[in-house]
């Protein structure tokens, strides 16, 4: 019989190398996959990993796709380190988008410089407000935040769908459920002419830096980490559990709301019944792929974004089905988890 035995002293080095290892094994498994599908391997890898970023425009698109994943991924990592399991970033993202869009629509005849800053504030506040519900329930009644934050995502989706088919609907839009297009003062500035790369990508880099400083250079970051690793030790050290839960959820909600605002004020430019293809959920994967470390999340976000772009290219140039992209992403996660298990456990044959 095969059993797993916990290693007394798991290698830290291997812990950091695991994502690279997993990526390598995924590529090998990909070789096999393409061989089975009868696709020339060189062409497949080219389509997946090179062609999407073979132009400046491609790099810009990578930034557009990765920015929300990184912003949310970093924020979630901070919470996960503290063992606060905010699974509802998707809902917080949607609320951020709604709140920001509300400001844009309210000021739609106003070209003032303050429109966009107000939208950003509203977006962050919207995400925080949505995350405050699980925070309150957790600290007051000890309700599991995994359940409440996740369930609130579905509430957020329905709220958005009600708003765009009712109060926030485009008055000239034949009753179709979408808001009017935002005016220029409500759109994020583009940072690369001729592409869709918007200021949100710069903010994503800022979030990475801020997350790193917070976790490694501040007392708050230390408190969050201690609370995650040993809650009772944290309590003895005088860190308030409630305060940490609130902090973790506010960071997560605020960043998710910001990412949502960036989507509606950036590449989309209006409020739609669906403003995110699941960034809030994918960011959970990104956080773990990045080892809950801001720098790691930066790279994980880019890799994940590239796999989406590659999936599109593979469909266009090689007529590969979309399912191949899903298989690829699934393999990556599977191998990451598998390497994690092997780092922490020893396989023993009995």
């Amino acid at each position: 019989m095969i059993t797993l035995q916990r290693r007394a002293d798991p290698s830290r080095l291997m812990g950091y190398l695991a994502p690279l290892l997993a990526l390598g094994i995924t590529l090998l498994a990909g070789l096999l996959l393409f061989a089975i599908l009868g696709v020339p391997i060189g062409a497949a890898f080219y389509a997946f990993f090179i062609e999407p970023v073979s132009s400046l425009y491609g790099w810009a698109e990578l930034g557009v796709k990765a920015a929300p994943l990184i912003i949310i991924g970093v924020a979630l990592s901070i919470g996960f380190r503290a063992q606060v399991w905010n699974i509802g970033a998707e809902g917080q993202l949607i609320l951020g988008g709604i709140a920001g869009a509300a400001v844009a629509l309210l000021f739609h005849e106003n070209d003032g410089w303050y429109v966009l800053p107000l939208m950003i504030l509203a977006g962050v506040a919207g995400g925080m407000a949505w995350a405050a519900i699980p925070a309150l329930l957790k600290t007051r009644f000890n309700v599991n935040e995994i359940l409440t934050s996740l369930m609130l995502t579905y509430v957020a989706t329905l709220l958005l769908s009600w708003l765009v088919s009712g109060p926030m609907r485009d008055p000239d839009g034949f009753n179709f459920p979408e808001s009017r297009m935002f005016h220029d003062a409500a759109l994020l500035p583009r940072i690369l002419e001729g592409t869709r790369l918007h200021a949100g990508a710069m903010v994503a880099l800022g979030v990475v830096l801020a997350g790193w400083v917070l976790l490694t250079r501040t007392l708050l970051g230390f408190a969050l980490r201690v609370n995650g690793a040993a809650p009772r030790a944290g309590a003895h050290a005088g860190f308030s559990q409630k305060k940490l839960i609130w902090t973790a959820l506010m960071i997560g909600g605020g960043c998710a709301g910001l990412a949502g605002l960036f989507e509606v004020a950036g590449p989309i430019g209006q409020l739609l019944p669906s403003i995110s293809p699941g960034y809030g959920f994918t960011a959970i994967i990104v956080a773990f792929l990045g080892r809950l470390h801001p720098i790691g999340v930066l790279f994980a976000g880019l890799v994940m974004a590239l796999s989406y772009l590659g999936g599109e290219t593979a469909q266009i140039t090689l007529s590969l089905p979309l399912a191949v992209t899903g298989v690829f992403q699934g393999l990556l996660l599977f191998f990451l988890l598998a390497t994690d298990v092997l780092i922490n456990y020893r396989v023993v044959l009995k």
Partner: protein
Amino acid sequence: MSISVYLKRAGLVFGAAVLSAAAMSAQAADPFKVGFVYVGPVGDHGWTYRHDVGRKAVQDEFGADVETTFVESVPEGADAERVIRKLASSGHDLIYTTSFGFMNPTLKVARDFPNVKFEHATGYKRADNVSTYGARFYEGRAVIGTIAGMMTKTNTVGYIGSFPIPEVVRGINAFTIAMRKVNPDAEVKVVWVNSWYDPGKEADAAKALIDQGADIITQHTDSPAPLQVAEERGVLGFGQASDMSAFAPKSQLTSIIDNWDQYYVDRTRAAMDGTWESMDTWGGLASGMVAFPEYSADVPDDVKAAAEVVREGIIDGSFHPFQGPILNQAGEEILPEGGIYDDKTLLGMNFYVQGVQGELPQ
């Protein structure tokens, strides 16, 4: 992968003059490239599947002169623009975007690629190089509404809606009006699933409707899941977008079929020979864009006859699914005897007629 494509790519990456020149000369002999952007998977057996059948019809018609490409399951949102732009910048001459949510992204990309032709399904915004097209599915709804009205025993029909947009509301109303013409006691219960394609939710909605007494199920979503539930529970139903009898041989009475083949072939030919112009097309039963397979053997002869009267009446213009008198949910007359709703009213329809239960979400 063809050599020319490889060279084109090579040219892109290395920018080597020699390779680029070779690629350009190879490009001259390239086939006419047509791209399709789908909102669902090609295997949905409904909406996207039928568009893909249309794509294959184009491929069959023009053979080696045309190269078709598709991208499936493209989310309506920020990703759509990138996919459309990628198709436009990779040498596609004509691009079909087949979901309402692709409207603004299509227009944005079209602005930057004036030489590429775009065709957007079910939208209302056009440009010099953007046409729109759609089908009058409500005509088909009137036919199946007639069948449902005559065949329901519980006088309750379940209707699974995707999003409460005019397109879907119009279908619900056309269905209900036709149903109550033959059976004034029958009512329609609607469940919204807020998705075009979500077999799990669609099936749950069907179960809920059957539990509430519906003995016929119809749907405006893309998967055969509601019909499969109907088959399991022994109630009747209709196929949506394509013939789904394989999934529900006993339950499916008939099916409203989307038929884009001819339109896609015609428009592709026009784009190839330079006669393509921006326009709006709204085809129906008469033009064959909406079609029906054989009725199931379980449909009694008198029901078949009544359905055929409606279908033929729509084709020869003697009957319109939205002709007065039409009553609203409160029972007040909103369209008098002899009146017919014009296309503008139909395109913006956001109210229920009498016989639909519940409130329209808005």
